[in-house]
Protein backbone atom coordinates (compact mmCIF):
# COMPACT_ATOMS: atom_id res chain seq x y z
CA UNK A 1 0.00 0.00 0.00
CA UNK A 2 1.49 3.21 -1.20
CA UNK A 3 0.00 6.27 0.40
CA UNK A 4 -0.08 9.28 -1.88
CA UNK A 5 -1.89 11.37 0.71
CA UNK A 6 -1.60 11.08 4.44
CA UNK A 7 -3.64 13.33 6.68
CA UNK A 8 -2.74 13.20 10.36
CA UNK A 9 -4.80 14.77 13.11
CA UNK A 10 -5.87 17.68 10.93
CA UNK A 11 -7.74 20.37 12.85
CA UNK A 12 -9.02 23.52 11.15
CA UNK A 13 -10.82 26.41 12.80
CA UNK A 14 -12.62 29.50 11.56
CA UNK A 15 -12.61 32.82 13.38
CA UNK A 16 -16.02 34.47 13.08
CA UNK A 17 -16.75 37.58 15.13
CA UNK A 18 -15.32 36.49 18.46
CA UNK A 19 -16.11 32.82 18.17
CA UNK A 20 -14.09 29.93 16.87
CA UNK A 21 -15.83 27.41 14.69
CA UNK A 22 -14.42 23.88 14.89
CA UNK A 23 -14.78 23.10 11.21
CA UNK A 24 -12.47 20.10 10.99
CA UNK A 25 -11.59 18.21 14.14
CA UNK A 26 -8.72 15.74 14.35
CA UNK A 27 -9.08 13.98 11.02
CA UNK A 28 -6.68 11.25 10.00
CA UNK A 29 -6.95 9.67 6.59
CA UNK A 30 -4.92 7.78 4.02
CA UNK A 31 -5.29 7.69 0.27
CA UNK A 32 -3.27 5.10 -1.58
CA UNK A 33 -1.89 5.28 -5.07
CA UNK A 34 -4.55 5.18 -7.79
CA UNK A 35 -7.29 5.03 -5.20
CA UNK A 36 -10.29 7.32 -5.28
CA UNK A 37 -11.64 8.19 -1.88
CA UNK A 38 -15.06 9.77 -1.56
CA UNK A 39 -15.60 12.18 1.29
CA UNK A 40 -19.29 12.15 2.05
CA UNK A 41 -21.01 14.56 4.36
CA UNK A 42 -23.78 17.09 4.64
CA UNK A 43 -23.48 20.82 5.15
CA UNK A 44 -21.33 21.64 8.13
CA UNK A 45 -19.45 18.36 7.93
CA UNK A 46 -16.22 20.17 7.18
CA UNK A 47 -15.44 18.21 4.03
CA UNK A 48 -14.93 21.22 1.83
CA UNK A 49 -12.87 22.97 4.50
CA UNK A 50 -10.66 19.92 4.70
CA UNK A 51 -10.14 19.94 0.94
CA UNK A 52 -9.18 23.60 0.98
CA UNK A 53 -6.85 23.02 3.92
CA UNK A 54 -5.03 20.27 2.06
CA UNK A 55 -4.32 22.50 -0.94
CA UNK A 56 -3.64 25.49 1.32
CA UNK A 57 -6.44 27.60 -0.08
CA UNK A 58 -8.26 28.41 3.11
CA UNK A 59 -9.93 31.82 3.46
CA UNK A 60 -8.14 34.41 5.61
CA UNK A 61 -10.27 33.84 8.66
CA UNK A 62 -9.52 30.12 8.79
CA UNK A 63 -6.39 28.57 10.20
CA UNK A 64 -4.91 25.13 10.68
CA UNK A 65 -4.73 24.57 14.39
CA UNK A 66 -2.99 21.25 14.28
CA UNK A 67 -2.03 18.33 12.15
CA UNK A 68 0.06 17.31 9.23
CA UNK A 69 -0.66 16.66 5.61
CA UNK A 70 1.77 14.62 3.61
CA UNK A 71 0.96 14.74 -0.10
CA UNK A 72 3.30 13.20 -2.63
CA UNK A 73 6.11 13.66 -0.15
CA UNK A 74 5.34 17.32 0.51
CA UNK A 75 4.76 18.39 4.10
CA UNK A 76 2.03 20.76 2.99
CA UNK A 77 1.08 22.30 6.31
CA UNK A 78 4.61 23.33 7.22
CA UNK A 79 5.57 24.68 3.84
CA UNK A 80 5.55 28.39 3.22
CA UNK A 81 3.03 29.96 0.85
CA UNK A 82 5.67 30.45 -1.83
CA UNK A 83 6.78 26.84 -1.63
CA UNK A 84 3.21 25.61 -1.88
CA UNK A 85 2.54 27.81 -4.90
CA UNK A 86 5.38 26.13 -6.73
CA UNK A 87 3.89 22.68 -6.42
CA UNK A 88 0.21 23.45 -6.36
CA UNK A 89 -1.29 22.90 -9.78
CA UNK A 90 1.78 21.02 -10.84
CA UNK A 91 1.73 17.81 -8.82
CA UNK A 92 -1.76 18.20 -7.40
CA UNK A 93 -4.80 20.32 -8.12
CA UNK A 94 -8.43 20.85 -7.27
CA UNK A 95 -11.63 21.12 -9.28
CA UNK A 96 -14.11 23.49 -7.69
CA UNK A 97 -17.84 23.49 -7.85
CA UNK A 98 -18.61 27.08 -8.67
CA UNK A 99 -16.87 27.00 -12.01
CA UNK A 100 -18.56 30.22 -13.07
CA UNK A 101 -16.73 32.18 -10.44
CA UNK A 102 -13.45 30.33 -10.75
CA UNK A 103 -12.75 31.44 -14.30
CA UNK A 104 -12.02 34.97 -15.34
CA UNK A 105 -14.96 36.25 -17.40
CA UNK A 106 -12.84 38.54 -19.53
CA UNK A 107 -10.22 36.10 -20.68
CA UNK A 108 -10.57 33.36 -23.21
CA UNK A 109 -10.27 29.76 -22.13
CA UNK A 110 -7.00 29.12 -23.92
CA UNK A 111 -5.38 32.14 -22.31
CA UNK A 112 -6.40 30.97 -18.87
CA UNK A 113 -5.15 27.46 -19.42
CA UNK A 114 -1.93 28.69 -20.98
CA UNK A 115 -1.26 30.81 -17.95
CA UNK A 116 -1.51 27.79 -15.69
CA UNK A 117 0.85 25.86 -17.91
CA UNK A 118 3.44 28.61 -18.25
CA UNK A 119 3.51 29.33 -14.53
CA UNK A 120 4.88 25.91 -13.81
CA UNK A 121 6.77 25.37 -17.04
CA UNK A 122 8.46 28.67 -17.85
CA UNK A 123 10.62 27.10 -20.56
CA UNK A 124 7.82 25.46 -22.47
CA UNK A 125 7.43 26.31 -26.14
CA UNK A 126 4.26 27.62 -27.71
CA UNK A 127 4.00 24.56 -29.84
CA UNK A 128 4.14 22.26 -26.84
CA UNK A 129 1.50 24.33 -25.12
CA UNK A 130 -0.83 24.05 -28.07
CA UNK A 131 -0.42 20.34 -28.42
CA UNK A 132 -1.01 19.92 -24.72
CA UNK A 133 -4.18 21.99 -24.86
CA UNK A 134 -5.43 19.89 -27.76
CA UNK A 135 -4.78 16.73 -25.84
CA UNK A 136 -6.49 18.03 -22.71
CA UNK A 137 -9.59 19.04 -24.61
CA UNK A 138 -9.73 15.65 -26.18
CA UNK A 139 -9.48 14.02 -22.80
CA UNK A 140 -12.49 15.88 -21.48
CA UNK A 141 -14.51 15.56 -24.65
CA UNK A 142 -14.59 19.20 -25.61
CA UNK A 143 -14.47 20.59 -29.15
CA UNK A 144 -11.55 22.77 -30.17
CA UNK A 145 -13.68 25.87 -30.48
CA UNK A 146 -13.94 26.01 -26.68
CA UNK A 147 -10.38 27.29 -26.57
CA UNK A 148 -11.32 30.50 -28.26
CA UNK A 149 -14.49 31.00 -26.21
CA UNK A 150 -15.21 33.08 -23.15
CA UNK A 151 -16.66 31.45 -20.04
CA UNK A 152 -20.13 32.94 -20.45
CA UNK A 153 -20.43 31.37 -23.88
CA UNK A 154 -20.24 27.87 -22.47
CA UNK A 155 -22.89 25.73 -20.88
CA UNK A 156 -22.57 24.49 -17.30
CA UNK A 157 -21.39 21.08 -18.41
CA UNK A 158 -18.76 22.50 -20.72
CA UNK A 159 -17.52 24.86 -18.02
CA UNK A 160 -17.11 22.02 -15.63
CA UNK A 161 -15.16 20.07 -18.20
CA UNK A 162 -12.94 23.10 -18.71
CA UNK A 163 -12.36 23.18 -14.96
CA UNK A 164 -11.32 19.55 -15.06
CA UNK A 165 -9.03 20.19 -18.00
CA UNK A 166 -7.58 23.14 -16.13
CA UNK A 167 -6.94 20.97 -13.10
CA UNK A 168 -5.15 18.42 -15.28
CA UNK A 169 -3.19 20.98 -17.24
CA UNK A 170 0.18 19.96 -15.79
CA UNK A 171 -0.72 16.28 -15.49
CA UNK A 172 -0.87 16.12 -11.72
CA UNK A 173 -0.75 12.93 -9.74
CA UNK A 174 -3.49 13.86 -7.31
CA UNK A 175 -6.73 15.72 -7.86
CA UNK A 176 -9.45 16.80 -5.47
CA UNK A 177 -12.97 17.13 -6.87
CA UNK A 178 -14.87 19.47 -4.59
CA UNK A 179 -18.58 19.04 -5.35
CA UNK A 180 -17.47 19.21 -8.95
CA UNK A 181 -20.69 17.92 -10.47
CA UNK A 182 -23.25 19.16 -7.99
CA UNK A 183 -24.71 21.97 -10.03
CA UNK A 184 -25.05 19.92 -13.18
CA UNK A 185 -27.86 18.02 -14.83
CA UNK A 186 -28.11 14.34 -14.21
CA UNK A 187 -27.08 13.39 -17.73
CA UNK A 188 -24.19 15.86 -17.89
CA UNK A 189 -23.09 14.76 -14.46
CA UNK A 190 -23.18 11.14 -15.54
CA UNK A 191 -21.17 11.86 -18.66
CA UNK A 192 -18.55 13.77 -16.75
CA UNK A 193 -18.25 11.02 -14.17
CA UNK A 194 -17.61 8.56 -16.97
CA UNK A 195 -15.02 10.83 -18.50
CA UNK A 196 -13.29 11.21 -15.16
CA UNK A 197 -13.21 7.42 -14.75
CA UNK A 198 -11.54 7.22 -18.13
CA UNK A 199 -9.03 9.89 -17.18
CA UNK A 200 -8.19 8.12 -13.95
CA UNK A 201 -7.08 5.12 -15.94
CA UNK A 202 -5.27 7.13 -18.59
CA UNK A 203 -3.31 9.32 -16.24
CA UNK A 204 -2.97 6.96 -13.27
CA UNK A 205 -4.64 9.55 -11.10
CA UNK A 206 -5.22 9.36 -7.40
CA UNK A 207 -8.09 11.40 -6.13
CA UNK A 208 -10.47 12.62 -3.52
CA UNK A 209 -14.11 13.26 -4.33
CA UNK A 210 -15.94 15.62 -1.99
CA UNK A 211 -19.68 15.33 -2.31
CA UNK A 212 -22.97 14.97 -0.52
CA UNK A 213 -24.27 12.68 -3.25
CA UNK A 214 -23.69 9.06 -2.34
CA UNK A 215 -24.70 7.97 -5.83
CA UNK A 216 -21.81 9.94 -7.33
CA UNK A 217 -19.40 8.39 -4.87
CA UNK A 218 -20.68 4.97 -5.78
CA UNK A 219 -19.85 5.54 -9.44
CA UNK A 220 -16.48 7.09 -8.94
CA UNK A 221 -14.81 5.91 -5.77
CA UNK A 222 -13.25 2.85 -4.23
CA UNK A 223 -13.42 3.94 -0.64
CA UNK A 224 -15.74 6.21 1.30
CA UNK A 225 -15.04 8.39 4.31
CA UNK A 226 -18.09 9.74 6.13
CA UNK A 227 -17.77 13.07 7.89
CA UNK A 228 -20.12 14.63 10.40
CA UNK A 229 -19.68 18.03 12.06
CA UNK A 230 -15.96 18.08 11.41
CA UNK A 231 -15.20 14.53 12.50
CA UNK A 232 -14.49 11.37 10.58
CA UNK A 233 -17.08 8.86 11.75
CA UNK A 234 -16.57 5.98 9.38
CA UNK A 235 -14.25 4.86 6.62
CA UNK A 236 -13.97 1.83 4.43
CA UNK A 237 -14.45 0.22 1.03
CA UNK A 238 -17.41 1.56 -0.87
CA UNK A 239 -19.73 -1.40 -0.84
CA UNK A 240 -19.08 -2.01 2.84
CA UNK A 241 -20.06 1.49 3.76
CA UNK A 242 -23.16 1.51 1.60
CA UNK A 243 -24.50 -1.93 2.25
CA UNK A 244 -23.06 -2.65 5.66
CA UNK A 245 -22.53 0.57 7.58
CA UNK A 246 -21.53 0.49 11.24
CA UNK A 247 -21.91 4.04 12.46
CA UNK A 248 -25.44 5.19 13.36
CA UNK A 249 -24.97 8.35 11.31
CA UNK A 250 -23.89 6.43 8.24
CA UNK A 251 -26.79 4.06 8.70
CA UNK A 252 -29.26 6.91 8.95
CA UNK A 253 -27.75 8.66 5.95
CA UNK A 254 -27.91 5.59 3.76
CA UNK A 255 -31.44 4.79 4.80
CA UNK A 256 -32.57 8.32 3.94
CA UNK A 257 -31.83 7.64 0.29
CA UNK A 258 -35.05 7.13 -1.66
CA UNK A 259 -33.29 4.30 -3.50
CA UNK A 260 -33.46 2.19 -0.38
CA UNK A 261 -37.06 2.69 0.47
CA UNK A 262 -39.50 0.04 -0.53
CA UNK A 263 -42.74 1.67 0.45
CA UNK A 264 -43.88 5.11 1.35
CA UNK A 265 -43.87 5.66 5.05
CA UNK A 266 -40.40 4.40 5.69
CA UNK A 267 -38.67 7.57 4.65
CA UNK A 268 -36.62 8.41 7.69
CA UNK A 269 -34.28 11.28 8.27
CA UNK A 270 -32.20 12.29 11.21
CA UNK A 271 -34.07 14.36 13.77
CA UNK A 272 -32.45 17.40 15.30
CA UNK A 273 -29.87 19.80 13.96
CA UNK A 274 -26.14 20.16 13.59
CA UNK A 275 -24.51 21.05 16.89
CA UNK A 276 -23.12 24.50 17.48
CA UNK A 277 -19.64 24.16 16.06
CA UNK A 278 -18.28 26.96 18.21
CA UNK A 279 -18.74 24.91 21.35
CA UNK A 280 -17.83 21.29 20.99
CA UNK A 281 -19.75 19.01 23.33
CA UNK A 282 -17.96 16.79 25.80
CA UNK A 283 -18.70 13.43 24.27
CA UNK A 284 -19.40 12.05 20.84
CA UNK A 285 -20.46 14.79 18.47
CA UNK A 286 -23.34 12.75 17.09
CA UNK A 287 -24.73 11.72 20.49
CA UNK A 288 -27.50 14.37 20.68
CA UNK A 289 -29.08 12.99 17.52
CA UNK A 290 -28.15 9.35 17.90
CA UNK A 291 -30.87 6.77 18.61
CA UNK A 292 -28.35 4.52 20.36
CA UNK A 293 -26.59 7.06 22.55
CA UNK A 294 -26.15 6.39 26.24
CA UNK A 295 -24.35 8.10 29.10
CA UNK A 296 -20.89 7.12 27.99
CA UNK A 297 -21.52 8.62 24.55
CA UNK A 298 -22.18 12.00 26.10
CA UNK A 299 -19.11 11.83 28.32
CA UNK A 300 -16.28 10.57 26.16
CA UNK A 301 -15.19 11.04 22.59
CA UNK A 302 -15.05 7.67 20.82
CA UNK A 303 -11.73 6.86 19.23
CA UNK A 304 -11.34 5.29 15.84
CA UNK A 305 -11.69 1.51 15.87
CA UNK A 306 -9.58 0.11 13.14
CA UNK A 307 -9.36 -3.10 11.22
CA UNK A 308 -7.28 -3.00 8.08
CA UNK A 309 -8.90 -0.25 6.03
CA UNK A 310 -12.20 -0.26 7.82
CA UNK A 311 -12.62 2.34 10.56
CA UNK A 312 -15.47 3.43 12.82
CA UNK A 313 -15.66 5.90 15.69
CA UNK A 314 -18.52 4.69 17.85
CA UNK A 315 -18.80 3.15 21.29
CA UNK A 316 -21.70 1.03 20.17
CA UNK A 317 -19.59 -0.80 17.67
CA UNK A 318 -17.79 -3.61 19.42
CA UNK A 319 -16.07 -5.21 16.55
CA UNK A 320 -15.16 -4.16 13.06
CA UNK A 321 -15.12 -6.87 10.46
CA UNK A 322 -13.69 -6.25 7.01
Amino acid at each position, binding site marked *: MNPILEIMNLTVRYKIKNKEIHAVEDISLLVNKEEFVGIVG*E*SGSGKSTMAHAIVRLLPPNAYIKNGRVNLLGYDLINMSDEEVMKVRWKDFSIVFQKSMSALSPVHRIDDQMMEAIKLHNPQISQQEIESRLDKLLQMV*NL*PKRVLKSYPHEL*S*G*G*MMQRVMIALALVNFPKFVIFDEATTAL*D*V*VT*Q*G*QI*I*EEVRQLVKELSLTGMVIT*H*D*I*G*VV*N*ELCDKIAVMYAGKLVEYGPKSDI*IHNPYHPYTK*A*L*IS*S*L*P*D*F*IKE*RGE*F*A*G*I*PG*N*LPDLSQLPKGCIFAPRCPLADEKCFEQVPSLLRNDDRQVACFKVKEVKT
Partner: protein
Amino acid sequence: MNDTKLLEVRNLKKYFTLRKFGRKSFVRAVDGVSFHIDRGEILGILGESGCGKSTLGLVLSRIEKETEGDIIFKNKKISGSLKLDKQTRRDIQIILQNPYDSFDPRLTIQDSLIVPLKIHGIGENTSDRREIILDYLHKAGFEPPSAFLKRYPHELSGGQLQRISVLRAMMLKPSFLIADECVSMLDLSVRASVINLLLDLTSMENTSMMFITHDISLGKFLSDRLAVIYLGKIVELGNAKEVSENPLHPYTKILISYSPSVFEKKEKIKPKEILSTTHQNIQRGCSFAPRCPFAKKECFEREPELFEVEKRHWVACLNYKK
Protein backbone atom coordinates in the same frame (compact mmCIF):
# COMPACT_ATOMS: atom_id res chain seq x y z
CA MET B 1 -64.58 10.37 -14.10
CA ASN B 2 -65.31 14.08 -14.14
CA ASP B 3 -65.93 14.12 -10.42
CA THR B 4 -62.47 12.96 -9.55
CA LYS B 5 -60.71 15.26 -11.98
CA LEU B 6 -59.42 18.19 -10.00
CA LEU B 7 -57.31 19.92 -12.59
CA GLU B 8 -57.22 19.72 -16.32
CA VAL B 9 -54.57 21.36 -18.45
CA ARG B 10 -55.00 21.64 -22.20
CA ASN B 11 -52.24 22.63 -24.57
CA LEU B 12 -50.67 25.00 -22.10
CA LYS B 13 -47.93 27.25 -23.44
CA LYS B 14 -45.71 29.84 -21.85
CA TYR B 15 -43.28 31.62 -24.08
CA PHE B 16 -40.83 34.27 -22.97
CA THR B 17 -39.74 36.82 -25.53
CA LEU B 18 -36.11 37.69 -25.81
CA ARG B 19 -35.09 40.82 -27.53
CA LYS B 20 -31.52 40.64 -28.66
CA PHE B 21 -30.30 43.46 -30.86
CA GLY B 22 -33.72 44.13 -32.25
CA ARG B 23 -34.41 40.54 -33.14
CA LYS B 24 -37.19 38.82 -31.27
CA SER B 25 -36.88 35.21 -30.30
CA PHE B 26 -38.85 33.01 -27.98
CA VAL B 27 -37.89 30.78 -25.13
CA ARG B 28 -40.56 28.11 -25.20
CA ALA B 29 -40.54 27.33 -21.53
CA VAL B 30 -43.81 25.44 -21.59
CA ASP B 31 -44.63 24.25 -25.09
CA GLY B 32 -48.04 22.64 -25.33
CA VAL B 33 -48.57 20.61 -22.19
CA SER B 34 -51.76 18.63 -21.54
CA PHE B 35 -52.59 16.44 -18.59
CA HIS B 36 -54.99 16.12 -15.71
CA ILE B 37 -54.70 15.53 -11.98
CA ASP B 38 -57.26 13.62 -9.94
CA ARG B 39 -58.32 14.42 -6.42
CA GLY B 40 -55.81 13.26 -3.85
CA GLU B 41 -53.32 12.24 -6.52
CA ILE B 42 -49.63 13.02 -6.53
CA LEU B 43 -48.30 13.78 -9.98
CA GLY B 44 -44.54 13.88 -10.27
CA ILE B 45 -43.05 16.24 -12.82
CA LEU B 46 -39.60 15.02 -13.71
CA GLY B 47 -37.09 16.93 -15.76
CA GLU B 48 -33.71 18.55 -15.75
CA SER B 49 -33.03 22.22 -15.19
CA GLY B 50 -34.30 24.46 -17.96
CA CYS B 51 -37.01 22.05 -19.09
CA GLY B 52 -39.79 24.37 -18.01
CA LYS B 53 -41.06 22.48 -15.00
CA SER B 54 -40.75 25.42 -12.63
CA THR B 55 -42.46 27.70 -15.11
CA LEU B 56 -45.28 25.18 -15.34
CA GLY B 57 -45.68 25.37 -11.58
CA LEU B 58 -45.76 29.16 -11.58
CA VAL B 59 -48.34 29.26 -14.36
CA LEU B 60 -50.60 26.71 -12.70
CA SER B 61 -50.43 28.58 -9.41
CA ARG B 62 -51.47 31.71 -11.32
CA ILE B 63 -48.38 33.68 -10.44
CA GLU B 64 -47.37 33.83 -14.09
CA LYS B 65 -49.77 34.21 -16.94
CA GLU B 66 -49.83 31.57 -19.64
CA THR B 67 -49.28 32.53 -23.27
CA GLU B 68 -51.90 30.10 -24.55
CA GLY B 69 -53.96 27.16 -23.39
CA ASP B 70 -56.64 26.24 -20.92
CA ILE B 71 -56.52 25.46 -17.25
CA ILE B 72 -59.66 24.02 -15.76
CA PHE B 73 -59.79 23.74 -12.01
CA LYS B 74 -62.78 22.11 -10.34
CA ASN B 75 -64.72 22.39 -13.58
CA LYS B 76 -64.10 26.10 -13.82
CA LYS B 77 -61.81 27.79 -16.29
CA ILE B 78 -59.12 29.73 -14.44
CA SER B 79 -56.88 30.47 -17.38
CA GLY B 80 -57.09 33.72 -19.29
CA SER B 81 -56.70 36.03 -16.33
CA LEU B 82 -54.55 35.95 -13.24
CA LYS B 83 -57.44 37.17 -11.11
CA LEU B 84 -58.91 34.47 -8.95
CA ASP B 85 -61.77 34.60 -6.54
CA LYS B 86 -60.73 34.25 -2.94
CA GLN B 87 -61.88 30.68 -2.56
CA THR B 88 -59.96 29.49 -5.61
CA ARG B 89 -56.89 31.49 -4.64
CA ARG B 90 -56.87 29.70 -1.32
CA ASP B 91 -57.39 26.38 -3.00
CA ILE B 92 -54.17 26.43 -5.03
CA GLN B 93 -50.90 26.84 -3.17
CA ILE B 94 -47.19 26.58 -3.98
CA ILE B 95 -43.95 25.82 -2.16
CA LEU B 96 -40.69 27.00 -3.68
CA GLN B 97 -37.17 25.63 -3.74
CA ASN B 98 -35.31 28.07 -1.53
CA PRO B 99 -36.93 28.49 1.87
CA TYR B 100 -34.85 31.54 2.73
CA ASP B 101 -36.11 33.30 -0.36
CA SER B 102 -39.73 32.41 0.40
CA PHE B 103 -40.02 34.43 3.57
CA ASP B 104 -39.87 38.15 4.26
CA PRO B 105 -36.67 38.40 6.33
CA ARG B 106 -38.13 41.22 8.37
CA LEU B 107 -41.06 39.24 9.66
CA THR B 108 -41.09 36.73 12.48
CA ILE B 109 -42.47 33.26 11.85
CA GLN B 110 -45.64 34.24 13.64
CA ASP B 111 -46.05 37.32 11.47
CA SER B 112 -45.50 35.32 8.31
CA LEU B 113 -47.90 32.56 9.29
CA ILE B 114 -50.67 34.81 10.53
CA VAL B 115 -51.04 36.59 7.19
CA PRO B 116 -52.68 33.75 5.23
CA LEU B 117 -55.01 32.99 8.14
CA LYS B 118 -56.07 36.59 8.39
CA ILE B 119 -56.64 37.02 4.68
CA HIS B 120 -58.86 33.97 4.44
CA GLY B 121 -60.70 34.55 7.69
CA ILE B 122 -59.41 31.49 9.47
CA GLY B 123 -59.65 32.02 13.21
CA GLU B 124 -61.70 34.62 15.04
CA ASN B 125 -58.97 36.84 16.39
CA THR B 126 -55.22 37.02 16.86
CA SER B 127 -55.01 34.70 19.82
CA ASP B 128 -57.23 32.18 18.06
CA ARG B 129 -54.95 32.25 15.05
CA ARG B 130 -51.93 31.95 17.30
CA GLU B 131 -53.40 28.75 18.68
CA ILE B 132 -53.94 27.37 15.22
CA ILE B 133 -50.33 28.14 14.31
CA LEU B 134 -49.03 26.56 17.50
CA ASP B 135 -51.05 23.46 16.77
CA TYR B 136 -49.56 23.15 13.31
CA LEU B 137 -46.04 23.78 14.59
CA HIS B 138 -46.52 21.03 17.09
CA LYS B 139 -47.78 18.69 14.37
CA ALA B 140 -44.68 19.45 12.33
CA GLY B 141 -42.42 18.47 15.19
CA PHE B 142 -41.35 21.88 16.48
CA GLU B 143 -40.87 21.61 20.22
CA PRO B 144 -41.73 23.77 22.05
CA PRO B 145 -43.88 25.40 19.37
CA SER B 146 -44.07 28.80 21.07
CA ALA B 147 -40.29 29.21 20.91
CA PHE B 148 -40.44 29.32 17.14
CA LEU B 149 -43.02 32.05 16.84
CA LYS B 150 -40.62 34.84 17.62
CA ARG B 151 -37.81 33.57 15.45
CA TYR B 152 -36.74 35.12 12.22
CA PRO B 153 -36.28 33.08 9.03
CA HIS B 154 -32.50 33.38 9.01
CA GLU B 155 -32.38 31.91 12.52
CA LEU B 156 -33.81 28.61 11.38
CA SER B 157 -32.15 25.82 9.47
CA GLY B 158 -33.14 25.13 5.86
CA GLY B 159 -35.10 22.04 6.85
CA GLN B 160 -36.98 23.83 9.60
CA LEU B 161 -37.83 26.76 7.40
CA GLN B 162 -39.00 24.55 4.57
CA ARG B 163 -41.29 22.69 6.95
CA ILE B 164 -42.76 26.02 7.90
CA SER B 165 -43.26 26.71 4.19
CA VAL B 166 -45.26 23.50 4.04
CA LEU B 167 -47.30 24.58 7.05
CA ARG B 168 -47.98 27.99 5.59
CA ALA B 169 -49.36 26.45 2.45
CA MET B 170 -51.28 23.61 4.07
CA MET B 171 -52.88 25.75 6.80
CA LEU B 172 -55.16 26.96 4.06
CA LYS B 173 -56.17 23.37 3.31
CA PRO B 174 -55.80 23.75 -0.45
CA SER B 175 -57.12 21.16 -2.87
CA PHE B 176 -54.03 21.51 -5.00
CA LEU B 177 -50.45 22.00 -3.88
CA ILE B 178 -47.48 22.59 -6.15
CA ALA B 179 -44.11 21.67 -4.64
CA ASP B 180 -41.31 23.01 -6.80
CA GLU B 181 -38.02 21.23 -6.04
CA CYS B 182 -38.86 21.73 -2.39
CA VAL B 183 -36.05 19.56 -1.00
CA SER B 184 -33.35 20.09 -3.61
CA MET B 185 -31.48 22.60 -1.52
CA LEU B 186 -31.65 20.59 1.67
CA ASP B 187 -29.28 18.06 3.14
CA LEU B 188 -30.17 14.41 2.65
CA SER B 189 -30.91 13.70 6.28
CA VAL B 190 -33.23 16.66 6.47
CA ARG B 191 -35.28 15.92 3.38
CA ALA B 192 -37.24 13.17 5.01
CA SER B 193 -38.71 15.45 7.64
CA VAL B 194 -40.01 17.83 4.99
CA ILE B 195 -41.31 15.07 2.71
CA ASN B 196 -42.99 13.23 5.55
CA LEU B 197 -44.73 16.40 6.70
CA LEU B 198 -45.82 17.05 3.16
CA LEU B 199 -47.23 13.56 2.78
CA ASP B 200 -48.95 13.66 6.17
CA LEU B 201 -50.73 16.92 5.59
CA THR B 202 -51.68 16.31 1.98
CA SER B 203 -53.14 12.91 2.70
CA MET B 204 -55.00 14.30 5.70
CA GLU B 205 -56.70 16.94 3.57
CA ASN B 206 -56.83 14.83 0.42
CA THR B 207 -54.82 17.50 -1.32
CA SER B 208 -53.59 16.75 -4.81
CA MET B 209 -49.95 17.52 -5.30
CA MET B 210 -47.77 18.32 -8.27
CA PHE B 211 -44.28 17.35 -7.15
CA ILE B 212 -41.63 18.94 -9.35
CA THR B 213 -38.17 17.43 -9.15
CA HIS B 214 -35.10 16.41 -11.10
CA ASP B 215 -34.42 13.50 -8.74
CA ILE B 216 -35.77 10.31 -10.25
CA SER B 217 -35.63 8.20 -7.12
CA LEU B 218 -37.51 10.84 -5.16
CA GLY B 219 -40.04 11.27 -7.94
CA LYS B 220 -40.61 7.53 -8.12
CA PHE B 221 -40.92 7.23 -4.37
CA LEU B 222 -43.49 9.97 -3.93
CA SER B 223 -45.63 10.02 -7.02
CA ASP B 224 -48.65 8.08 -8.13
CA ARG B 225 -48.09 9.08 -11.70
CA LEU B 226 -44.98 10.54 -13.27
CA ALA B 227 -44.66 12.95 -16.19
CA VAL B 228 -41.28 13.39 -17.84
CA ILE B 229 -40.65 16.80 -19.37
CA TYR B 230 -38.12 17.73 -22.02
CA LEU B 231 -37.82 21.26 -23.39
CA GLY B 232 -41.31 22.24 -22.33
CA LYS B 233 -43.16 19.16 -23.54
CA ILE B 234 -44.32 16.02 -21.80
CA VAL B 235 -42.53 13.12 -23.44
CA GLU B 236 -43.81 10.34 -21.19
CA LEU B 237 -46.62 10.02 -18.69
CA GLY B 238 -47.81 7.09 -16.68
CA ASN B 239 -47.82 5.24 -13.43
CA ALA B 240 -44.67 6.20 -11.49
CA LYS B 241 -43.43 2.68 -11.02
CA GLU B 242 -44.13 1.82 -14.63
CA VAL B 243 -42.35 4.81 -16.04
CA SER B 244 -39.26 4.40 -13.91
CA GLU B 245 -38.94 0.65 -14.28
CA ASN B 246 -40.13 0.35 -17.83
CA PRO B 247 -39.30 3.66 -19.49
CA LEU B 248 -40.38 3.93 -23.09
CA HIS B 249 -39.25 7.31 -24.29
CA PRO B 250 -35.55 7.48 -25.23
CA TYR B 251 -35.06 10.55 -23.05
CA THR B 252 -36.54 8.81 -20.04
CA LYS B 253 -34.37 5.80 -20.71
CA ILE B 254 -31.26 7.96 -20.86
CA LEU B 255 -32.24 9.92 -17.78
CA ILE B 256 -32.83 6.81 -15.73
CA SER B 257 -29.66 5.12 -16.91
CA TYR B 258 -27.64 8.14 -15.89
CA SER B 259 -29.13 8.84 -12.49
CA PRO B 260 -26.52 7.98 -9.89
CA SER B 261 -27.56 5.04 -7.85
CA VAL B 262 -26.20 3.16 -4.93
CA PHE B 263 -27.05 -0.08 -6.57
CA GLU B 264 -25.13 -1.81 -9.28
CA LYS B 265 -24.08 0.36 -12.16
CA LYS B 266 -26.58 0.43 -14.93
CA GLU B 267 -25.80 0.21 -18.58
CA LYS B 268 -25.66 3.79 -19.78
CA ILE B 269 -27.72 4.76 -22.78
CA LYS B 270 -25.76 7.55 -24.34
CA PRO B 271 -27.42 10.53 -25.93
CA LYS B 272 -25.90 11.95 -29.07
CA GLU B 273 -23.63 14.87 -28.44
CA ILE B 274 -24.97 18.29 -29.14
CA LEU B 275 -22.81 20.96 -27.76
CA SER B 276 -25.29 23.69 -27.14
CA THR B 277 -27.88 23.26 -24.46
CA THR B 278 -29.76 26.44 -25.16
CA HIS B 279 -33.33 26.10 -26.27
CA GLN B 280 -32.97 25.56 -29.94
CA ASN B 281 -35.95 26.82 -31.80
CA ILE B 282 -36.68 23.47 -33.38
CA GLN B 283 -39.23 24.27 -35.98
CA ARG B 284 -39.99 20.84 -37.25
CA GLY B 285 -39.79 17.39 -35.82
CA CYS B 286 -39.22 16.04 -32.36
CA SER B 287 -37.34 18.40 -30.08
CA PHE B 288 -35.29 15.51 -28.70
CA ALA B 289 -34.27 14.15 -32.10
CA PRO B 290 -30.85 15.87 -32.26
CA ARG B 291 -29.77 14.06 -29.10
CA CYS B 292 -31.72 10.86 -29.59
CA PRO B 293 -29.71 7.69 -30.21
CA PHE B 294 -32.79 6.08 -31.77
CA ALA B 295 -33.81 8.93 -34.04
CA LYS B 296 -34.99 8.13 -37.56
CA LYS B 297 -35.31 10.45 -40.52
CA GLU B 298 -38.99 10.86 -39.77
CA CYS B 299 -38.20 12.20 -36.31
CA PHE B 300 -36.67 15.35 -37.77
CA GLU B 301 -39.74 16.01 -39.87
CA ARG B 302 -42.80 15.17 -37.84
CA GLU B 303 -43.53 16.19 -34.28
CA PRO B 304 -44.66 13.25 -32.16
CA GLU B 305 -47.91 13.46 -30.21
CA LEU B 306 -48.47 12.01 -26.78
CA PHE B 307 -50.45 8.81 -27.17
CA GLU B 308 -51.28 5.73 -25.14
CA VAL B 309 -48.73 3.06 -26.03
CA GLU B 310 -49.54 0.70 -23.21
CA LYS B 311 -52.40 0.80 -20.77
CA ARG B 312 -52.26 4.16 -19.03
CA HIS B 313 -48.73 4.71 -20.24
CA TRP B 314 -48.38 7.59 -22.67
CA VAL B 315 -45.36 8.39 -24.83
CA ALA B 316 -44.55 11.05 -27.42
CA CYS B 317 -42.21 9.18 -29.72
CA LEU B 318 -42.47 8.12 -33.34
CA ASN B 319 -40.67 4.87 -32.59
CA TYR B 320 -43.87 3.52 -31.15
CA LYS B 321 -46.91 2.58 -33.16
CA LYS B 322 -50.41 3.31 -31.98
